[in-house]
Every structure is written in structure tokens, then in C-alpha cells.
């Protein structure tokens, strides 16, 4: 039997909070973090922008040399380790693994450099030698190891917008394989710094716009008109339960189920049947029924077809589930891409303690195609008891991911 793995620390930066307590407070108080934003070539749009202090854990030179994704990763990793209460000085750094999900990496740095050499008539002798270390796909995870002197394995997981969950899943699996003793795992995104992502979504008819930026991201609402792109990050410290208990760690929850599958149908359009299968696989792995889930956090990006398809998939699985409640987080923070799954899961974890299901922000009128029983709108809903949270994250090329976290209790899970 595989060893049980638990979450013992959370480090995050979101457009509306730079640690879990700030983030949770904003979610419960209905405070979003979307702002007006302008980026070269594309112009005016909206975005979720993080205001964490990068210099808290990096020198100015490290920031200059590295990437925004690296800074976000380093901030989140330190915050997670600090939050875990582990004695970092005594940790064997060769036994720490770093697994960071990313939607994409390298677009920002490449665009910057093409822009820079455009000032020199595209003379490639002006192309920075920092380009390669900044754009290698492992950059965000690698920057963590450089900064924190971690000599265990590190890599990123490219998984489109399912990446936050895949980072978490990878960390859990590596702990179970004893490839590491402490995993720093989750997802990050620097995507607001590439004009390409805004232009591509816009040309796809999938970029949100609103006269009030705080109302631009409105998943499931009848007046939704697309995605708000955000930056952000969320990394967890994961440990085998036995190790966590041995050091008397605070336990946020236990990862009891997960699944990743592929639509195999379209580059961008989701497939509700495969999404439903992914949820069912995760439930099966956890030994749970749909009725056992208290909170389902939707992926729900705010696109017309994506939200409708996703809800169709959920309605297939969650039939006659009176205690199951549904929420979505992107109305508050936009779509944090590779960080989305991890951030949105983190935002719900405190429900194990406070029993609140945070509401969907900007969901003024539910689209009929997005109707779900117990969809939480308006105010947070106090539930009787929260023991199981299911988080979904789906991405382009048809990648689906689901994780199920259970409130930790002594004894069998």
C-alpha cells in the first residue's frame, strides 16, 4: 500500500493576497484583485497582478538575472517552508524535490529579447547571454534550488492550465517512491508579461473585457465574455504522513485521490466526457463516492463554451449529491494559468477548519448552461462540516487534472 501524503505548508501569491490567510480573507470577504493593465503591442486589457516583495528572499542581482516566474517560485517556496514549521537548517537538502507546474515558460523572456534587439536593428549580437538559462523549461524550479541550496531533483511540469494540480500530484508520487523526503510542489505563472497570450486569447474571442476590471472575470455568469489572465503562484510542502506526524507538523489535509487524463479530441475545446471520467477516476482512487465530496472547485475560466462544457461534465458525475457544493475562484483572481489549480485548491483548504464554502465572485446571473445544484453565489456558505474537497483544473490540448484532499484524521483515511 502506498504511503499517505499530506500537505504541511502553503506559500502563495495571488492578485488579492500574498499568503494563505490574506487570500482566504479576500475570498470570504468578496474582494477580487483584477486591475486595468497595459502591455506593449497589445495595449489595454485587464490582468491579475501580484504585489509580493521579491526582495524578501532574493538579491537585486538574482531578480535581474532570473525570471518573474523564478521570483514567484522562490517567494512561494520560502513561504511554504516557513509555513510548514520544518527546521529548514537541519533538512537534508539532497532529499528535497521541487516540482513546479507551468502553463508555458520562456515566452516572456523571448518577447523581451526580441523587443530589445529591435532597438538595434535586430542585430543578434545584442541578444542577451541570459536568454538560455532564463528560458529553459526547468527555470522556475531551478531558480528555487539555486536560491534555497536544494540539491535534490527539480523540474517543471508543462501541463497547460492543469499544471498546478500536476505539480502537486508529481510531488506526492515522488514522496511515495521515496525519491525525496520533502516535496515543494504546485504551480506558478508569469504569463501576464507576454503580450502573445493576450493577443491569442483575444483573437480566439476568449479574452474578457469590462468597463470595471473587478467585474471582468465572471465565470458561469450569463454575461461572461472570456478570460482575465493573471500571474501568481502556489507551492505546497508535502510530506509522507509518518514524517509529518513524527515532527508534529500542522496538517492542512491529505491527498487521497487524483487523476490526469487526456481528451484526445481538440486543441482548445474541452471534452466534458473526458473531464467527467477524470473526476470519476480520482474518486475511485480515493475510494469515495460523489456524495462524499463537500466542495468542488471548478476550473471555470469565464469563456462561453469552456464553462458550459465543464458544467455538463460535472452534472454527469454529481447526481443526487445534496451536500456537495460548487464554487469557482477565477472571478476573484482571474486565470492564473499554471498556478490556477494550486491557488484555487489552497483557497479552499481553510474550509476544513472554518466550514465555509467561498462564493463565486461576479456571478450575478447564472447561465442556464452552467446551472449546478448548490452553486455558491453571493455570500460564502457555511456548511455543516467539510471533510472532502475536489479541485479540477483543465488545460489546452485536452489535459484534465483532478485532486481530492481530505481533512486529516488519525487512523485509516
Amino acid at each position: 500500500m502506498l504511503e499517505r501524503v499530506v500537505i504541511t505548508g502553503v506559500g502563495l501569491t495571488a492578485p488579492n493576497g500574498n499568503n494563505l490567510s490574506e487570500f482566504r480573507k479576500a475570498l470570504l470577504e468578496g474582494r477580487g484583485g483584477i486591475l486595468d493593465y497595459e502591455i506593449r503591442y497589445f495595449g489595454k486589457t485587464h490582468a491579475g497582478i501580484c504585489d509580493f516583495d521579491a526582495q524578501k528572499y532574493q538579491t537585486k542581482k538574482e531578480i535581474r538575472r532570473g525570471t518573474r516566474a523564478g521570483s514567484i517560485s522562490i517567494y512561494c517556496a520560502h513561504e511554504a517552508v516557513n509555513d510548514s514549521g520544518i527546521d529548514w537548517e537541519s533538512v537534508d537538502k539532497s532529499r528535497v524535490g521541487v516540482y513546479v507546474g507551468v502553463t508555458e515558460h520562456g515566452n516572456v523572456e523571448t518577447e523581451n529579447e526580441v523587443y530589445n534587439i529591435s532597438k538595434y536593428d535586430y542585430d543578434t549580437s545584442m541578444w542577451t547571454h541570459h536568454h538560455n538559462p532564463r528560458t529553459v523549461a526547468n527555470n522556475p524550479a531551478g531558480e528555487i534550488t539555486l536560491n534555497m541550496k536544494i540539491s535534490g531533483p527539480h523540474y517543471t511540469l508543462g501541463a497547460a492550465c492543469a499544471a498546478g494540480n500536476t505539480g502537486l500530484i508529481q510531488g506526492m508520487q515522488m514522496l511515495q517512491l521515496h525519491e525525496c523526503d520533502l516535496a515543494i510542489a504546485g504551480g506558478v505563472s508569469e504569463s501576464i508579461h507576454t503580450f502573445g497570450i493576450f493577443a491569442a486569447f483575444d483573437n480566439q474571442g476568449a479574452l474578457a473585457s469590462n468597463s470595471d476590471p473587478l467585474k471582468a472575470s465572471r465565470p458561469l455568469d450569463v454575461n461572461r465574455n472570456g478570460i482575465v489572465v493573471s500571474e501568481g503562484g502556489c507551492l505546497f510542502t508535502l510530506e509522507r504522513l509518518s514524517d509529518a506526524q513524527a515532527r508534529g507538523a500542522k496538517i492542512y489535509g491529505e491527498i487521497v485521490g487524483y487523476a490526469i487524463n487526456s481528451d484526445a479530441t481538440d486543441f482548445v475545446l474541452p471534452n466534458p466526457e473526458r473531464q467527467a471520467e477524470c473526476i470519476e477516476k480520482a474518486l475511485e482512487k480515493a475510494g469515495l463516492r460523489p456524495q462524499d465530496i463537500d466542495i468542488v472547485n471548478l476550473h471555470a475560466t469565464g469563456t462561453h463554451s469552456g464553462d458550459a462544457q465543464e458544467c455538463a461534465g460535472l452534472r454527469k458525475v454529481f447526481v443526487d449529491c445534496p451536500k456537495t457544493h460548487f464554487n469557482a475562484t477565477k472571478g476573484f483572481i482571474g486565470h492564473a494559468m499554471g498556478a490556477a489549480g494550486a491557488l484555487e485548491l489552497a483557497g479552499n483548504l481553510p474550509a476544513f477548519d472554518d466550514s465555509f464554502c467561498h462564493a463565486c465572485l461576479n456571478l450575478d446571473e447564472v447561465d442556464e448552461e452552467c446551472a449546478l445544484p448548490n452553486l455558491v453565489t453571493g455570500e460564502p456558505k457555511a456548511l455543516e462540516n467539510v471533510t472532502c474537497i475536489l479541485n479540477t483544473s483543465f488545460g489546452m490540448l485536452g489535459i484534465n487534472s483532478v485532486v481530492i484532499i481530505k481533512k486529516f484524521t488519525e487512523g485509516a483515511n
Partner: protein
Amino acid sequence: MTKEEIREAVLDILSDVAPDEDLSDLKDNVSFREQMELDSMDFLDIVMELRRRFKVNIPEEEYTALGSMDSTVEYLAPKMADL
């Protein structure tokens, strides 16, 4: 550019390349590496900035001329005299 202007230009580049360093008491006759944390990537940054800002190209075999402020200014003076 005069030698003093070149020195100021190099100092400006150094402040960008090594933003954490206090350059106010930099000793011109002592090597940069003895006074501040500079690695090979930083030296490449200095070379790149000289190229970008002043169109001064420095061949790799001459990088050693950039050891200290004195040697750097001496090396750059003829290359930047007409700027």
C-alpha cells in the same frame, strides 16, 4: 569621451550589473572581483552593455582588460575617445 566620463559610464554599468553592491568606495586600482561579487555572467553583462550603449566590441581574448576600473578605463579610452 574623457577618461573620467568613461569611468562614470563603467560605474553606471556596474551599478546595473551588480545592483546590490555599494560602489561609492570602489578602488580603481584593485580588481573588481576582490571588491564585489562578480561572476563570468556578470562580466558578459558588462561586455554586452558596452556594446549596446557605446557600440564598443570587445574580443573575448581581451576580456582580461576589464579586471579593474583602472585597466578598464585605460583599455576603453582609445576605443571611446571619439564618442
